[in-house]
């Protein structure tokens, strides 16, 4: 390797790439501070006059908060339920020997193969018959069901890596499966639980198609639906829309900053070794 020139070239390439990738974000953030008139002549640069009213009116109104709370509730329920259901299943697959284990595992992993969209119409009819349309659960339960394959796959791997001696000594103490699961398996698996939790959280937070079909009333909209409604309402008032978009991006960026280890582990761990 040409050691001397390399760092310089590397920085040059990276900075160029970073600028190109970041332009859309910066424009969006700054666009929210511009008046419509200025946006038109100066979409790229710093605002000549910093308009605070776009951000202020959105932050001061109830809508953004309502949407974010809905998203948070849906994501929270999805994460909790995914962790409970898939860790139980993964525990059984990893640590209990039983007839049909392999067959059942493959059955559940089928979910990895196709997207929600394929069965969305019958799913919609099913949710209607269950009376779950326009409820949080109508989004949560299908999200959990479709996320199970991925979650079980990752967790089973992690649980398999736990040493056998643990159970041997637990048995001496007369420990039941349930106690062992709760007191040994889960506490030792916090990293994988966090990873699955964070990935599930992001997927739920960003989900659009399922709530689009399931949720009807404005009061229950998660933010991706809310932002589309907002866009429909304020059609051409781009500075307001850009401010709204910026404010909805903030949680995602914060999540990345605080949980990047788990995000990356989830995407690569599940991927590279899966």
């Amino acid at each position, binding site marked *: 390797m040409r050691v001397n020139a390399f760092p310089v070239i590397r920085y040059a390439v990276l900075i160029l790439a970073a600028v190109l990738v970041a332009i859309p974000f910066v424009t969006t953030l700054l666009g929210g501070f511009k008046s419509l008139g200025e946006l038109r002549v100066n979409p790229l640069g710093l605002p000549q006059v910093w308009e605070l009213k776009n951000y202020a009116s959105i932050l001061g109104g109830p809508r953004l908060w309502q949407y974010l709370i809905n998203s948070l509730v849906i994501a929270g329920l999805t994460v909790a339920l995914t962790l409970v259901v898939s860790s139980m299943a993964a525990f059984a697959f990893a640590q209990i020997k039983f007839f049909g284990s392999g067959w059942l595992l493959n059955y559940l992993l089928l979910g990895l193969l196709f997207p929600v969209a394929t069965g969305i119409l019958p799913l919609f009819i099913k949710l209607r018959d269950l009376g779950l349309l326009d409820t949080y659960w109508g989004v949560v339960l299908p999200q959990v069901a479709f996320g199970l394959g991925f979650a079980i796959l990752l967790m089973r791997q992690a649980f398999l890596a736990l040493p056998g001696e643990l159970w041997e000594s637990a048995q001496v103490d007369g420990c039941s499966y349930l106690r062992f699961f709760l007191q040994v398996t889960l506490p030792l698996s916090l990293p994988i639980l966090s990873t699955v939790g964070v990935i599930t959280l992001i997927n739920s937070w960003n989900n659009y198609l399922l709530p689009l079909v399931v949720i*009807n009333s404005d009061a229950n909209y998660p933010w991706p639906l809310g932002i589309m409604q907002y866009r429909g*309402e304020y*059609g051409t008032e781009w500075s307001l829309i850009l401010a709204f978009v910026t404010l909805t991006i903030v949680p995602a960026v914060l999540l990345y900053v605080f949980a990047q280890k788990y995000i990356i582990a989830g995407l690569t761990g599940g991927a590279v070794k899966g």
Partner: protein
Amino acid sequence: MSSLSKFRLALSLSAALLTASAASAQEVVNWVHIEQNPDTVRVFEEIAAGYEALHPDVDIKLQYLENEAYKARLPTMLQSNDAPDIFYSWGGGVLAEQVKGGVLRDISASVDDAWKTSIAPSAFGAFTVDGKIYGVPVRTSLVGFFYNKKLFAQAGIDEASLGTWSGLMAAVDKLEAAGITPMALGGQEGWPQHFYFSYLAIRTAGHEKLNAALAGEGEGFRDPAFVQAFQLLADLSAKNPWQEGWQAATTGDSYAKFGNGEAAMLLQGDWARASTATESASGQGLGDDLGWFAFPQVETGIVDSKETFGGVNGWIFFKDASDAAVDFVRYYSSRENLIKLANEGYQIAPMPGMADELKDTWQKMVAQTIEASAFHQNFYNVMFSEEVNRELLDIVTSVVTGDRTAEEAADALQTAWEFSH
């Protein structure tokens, strides 16, 4: 978001904190509307508040959905047990589908003669399927050309020449020669360009041929009169009169384009008058430069056609809607409220003597035009099922872009219609 809705949010939050018994005393009526104009929404809210004052046990809840989003979600919305009680309808084929699907409440028993005659009885016809009434007509609209007087003067166009299609075509040429974009169009949604085709078809075929086609009689949409309407649209499109990027423009974009004075004409319904101001960059629109002319006569079509084009809209009811919901719409459609809506909310009702009650002279003219019309044709696309409606919009767009000839378009429309029957 208005302070009223903020108040409502606060109210619903505090209601949730109170005991369940306090909340159950209220009968909730959910009402979904697609009205974007803040003045109209304010009148809606006032009417709801007025009703609530008379009936303290009823809580009317307004919910707004954007027009396109509303159309896309309505089918799925009506599958839910929590579907809205009262919602917006254009009548026509979609209404018939909804009736067939059994998702609407038949309100025939509630609509007595007094109610029927307080609005125009014929307008109730738009919400009658197989002799049963499903909705209450509360609004009628008129499509025509808005134009920018200043830009017309700049291009040297005599407004008197706009009574004929050839005059309009000449005006387009003059505007283009003067470097002015002749027309604004929100092409992404499809229905705005279908206004051109529909109005042309009214001028070339008239409502009798449309009804014949819808009844499966004769050549249907392959009739030369429909081919001619497509051909006239193709001729106009060949001049490329619309703003650059119209294909991806929303209706709102086209209002802004016209309201900013960047295009000389806009073929739209009367509702667009307020929107061209609110959507413009200044928020003021064209002011005194805003003009209006009726859709021109087509010299090669029906001689001196007296038919007009626009929608009849109303409120329809979900199958589980309560009597309170119907009663509320009855209150809503009282003469007093409909006049208030027209004067303060820009929605003209199909009501006898409407024109006399209007304060604004332009609105008065619109109401008089509709009243004097030989036949007020409902929007073509809504006459069909949702499926054929969307197909029609695609077909019209393909004529505008030159991908289909007039003959091919008429053939495709007839095929689509036959397919669904």
